[in-house]
């Protein structure tokens, strides 16, 4: 669909204004990380760092083995995301395309548990983890958080739009249920899988509570766990915190930029034309 030039201009100016509003605070974070402490706290506020300094980055990196934390976070994030994509898409498929007893109760139950503040059930979670021998194990921060209600819900709502005729046709051809899921549903769900991959990457990369509960071995620390050390009782090391926030944003941003290209139409037709 070609857009008229006037519409085009309108769209771009609207987007640019909104984008500016969204971008300014983010830019402030990045710029602040490059400021000296005296610029960071100066009044009237300074817009531009003078001079530009990397001292916060250096200092932050000197406060822990961040190479190791990055490695741990990467392993956890990648494995957990793959697991999440698999099990959430399976569950979402079941809830969207089959009618079975308890399906809506399961879904609503799933979603409502999002409401429980995890802090309140931390002690029982710890007990379960240690009963299963998962205390101080990376598995504890990979497996449990992968079963997200949000992911299941997201998959289900998307897959609702898959025409039933498609599945029936496949069944007529003798395809099994797993085959239908694997070779019809999954390829169709690519855009939503990309969305979920982006979300899961962010959730796990920024996860703090599960590592806090489960990990006590400094060799298994994730980045977020290490970052929280910058917050003391009386003072917060804002410089280091800003610097590390900028660095930790980069992988999430890259993943987003790569995966957002898959937000394309998965279903070319409504099935009306067969």
């Amino acid at each position, binding site marked *: 669909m070609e857009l008229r030039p006037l519409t085009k201009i309108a769209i771009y100016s609207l987007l640019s204004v909104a984008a500016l509003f969204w971008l300014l605070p983010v830019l402030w974070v990045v710029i602040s990380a490059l400021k000296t402490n005296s610029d960071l706290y100066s009044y009237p506020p300074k817009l531009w760092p003078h001079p530009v300094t990397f001292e916060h980055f250096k200092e932050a990196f000197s406060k822990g083995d961040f190479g190791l934390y990055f490695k741990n976070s990467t392993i956890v994030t990648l494995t957990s995301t793959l697991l999440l994509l698999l099990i959430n898409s399976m569950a979402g498929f079941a809830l969207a395309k089959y009618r079975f007893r308890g399906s809506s109760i399961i879904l609503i139950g799933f979603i409502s548990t999002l409401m429980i503040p995890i802090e309140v059930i931390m002690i029982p979670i*710890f007990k379960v983890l240690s009963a299963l021998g998962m205390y101080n194990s990376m598995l504890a921060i990979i497996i449990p958080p992968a079963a997200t209600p949000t992911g299941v819900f997201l998959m289900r709502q998307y897959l609702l739009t898959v025409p039933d005729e498609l599945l029936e046709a496949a069944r007529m051809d003798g395809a099994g249920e797993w085959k239908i899921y694997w070779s019809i549903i999954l390829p169709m769900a690519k855009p939503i899988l990309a969305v979920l991959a982006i979300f899961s990457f962010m959730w796990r990369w920024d996860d703090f509570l599960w590592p806090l509960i489960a990990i006590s071995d400094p060799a298994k620390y994730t980045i977020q766990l290490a970052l929280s050390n910058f917050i003391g009782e009386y003072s917060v090391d804002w410089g280091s915190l800003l610097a590390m926030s900028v660095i930790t944003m980069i992988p999430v941003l890259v993943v987003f930029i790569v995966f957002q290209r898959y937000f394309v139409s998965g279903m070319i037709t409504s099935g009306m034309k067969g």
Partner: protein
Amino acid sequence: MKRRTNFKLSFSLVLIMSLIMLTACGNTDNSTVNTGSTGGAKQATLDFLWFSDGNEGEVIKGIIKEYEQSNTNVKINLIEVGFKDLQTKLKTMISGGKPPALSRITDTGSFANQAVDLTPYVESADQFEGQFIDSLKPYYVIDDKLIAAPMDVTANGLIYNKTLFDKAGVKVPTSPEEVWTWDEYIAALKEVMAKGGARYGMVWDVTPHRWSTLLYQNGGSIVTEDGSAAAINSEAGVRCMELFKQLHKDGIMPESVWLGGENPNNLFRSGTVAAHWAGNWMISNYKDITDFEWGVTYMPKGTQRSSVPGGKFLMAFKGSGNEQEAAAFINYLTSKEVNSKYNQESLFMSPRKDSSVLDYEFGKEMYEVFSDELKNTSPLAANDWSRQTLISKISTDLKNNIIDVLSDKATAQEAMDKTAKLINEAIGSQ
């Protein structure tokens, strides 16, 4: 449909990869799960929970290394978490049946029942307690049990912007004899605002703990000396509340700190505020300020002088399986030599009577002011703040009630009465 096959192929590939990774991580976990004893000289791994404000984390790591070298059977696993997460983590570990061997801790009272009584591990309780500043005793001796050991002591105090005071030509007290009265102090701040160009006279940390300094300087307290009833709604308490409100009304203090959540530390750093009511811990934080000169002076007196003592402690926990080793390590850390080194390098004040003068590489004269504040402190301050289970129940309400007064939702008397009622309820339920 080539793309579809590609997608499937890559999906299965990553799936397999992830499974391999999962099993790989799974395998490496078993080696570090526990710390049992294996005959002979007992090998022990001590989980040591820790939080940092400044560089004390680095200092303790150095000390741990030395300790491990001379005690080869002991390995110390320093678990660093943020301050606000320490209590949560500690609770989870204890209730989940895996307590750490020891922890750095501020709210000793909350964990009293889970703490190892250190009495059998020290020469004698009296001798041990005699080493430390007396006002700290109620924090670590509970029901005649030695539940913790002091690592450093803190004092609330007054940090001022020397550049602004000089510009206004206002002098600060340089010896305990010259201490301001509150009226003189307020007049001084007003002058610094008028002539020195300070936007605000002072900022004050948003915690009931820092607020209570004012209370003790006017002879008030949160609870009575025997702890049986609230005392905060006394005449002194109400007068303090009114003064605190007046300071806001007159624009000496910005409302944005207590009402709007602005960070007083960051405001003082901007160089436009004449004074910051904080504590000795701020010295190391402000060390890197280059835009202006700053210093520490004596807090003004009301009916008397007072600061509020506080501190960080070390606590060992029952059921870690390494109680003895933990106690031995605590003994080591509180010994004169190690404790002085720790406090000197971290820029903290030592709780030991015999190390009150340390050779700091920065701000030595400032610490002298703080330790003088501590010597001239109302005993009611420690009496209040060592009742930590009670304090934890009422501190949020106290803060909110103070804010209610500042935002004209309640009079000073109403707010203090309301707080007193909650305090009495909390005492009654214990």
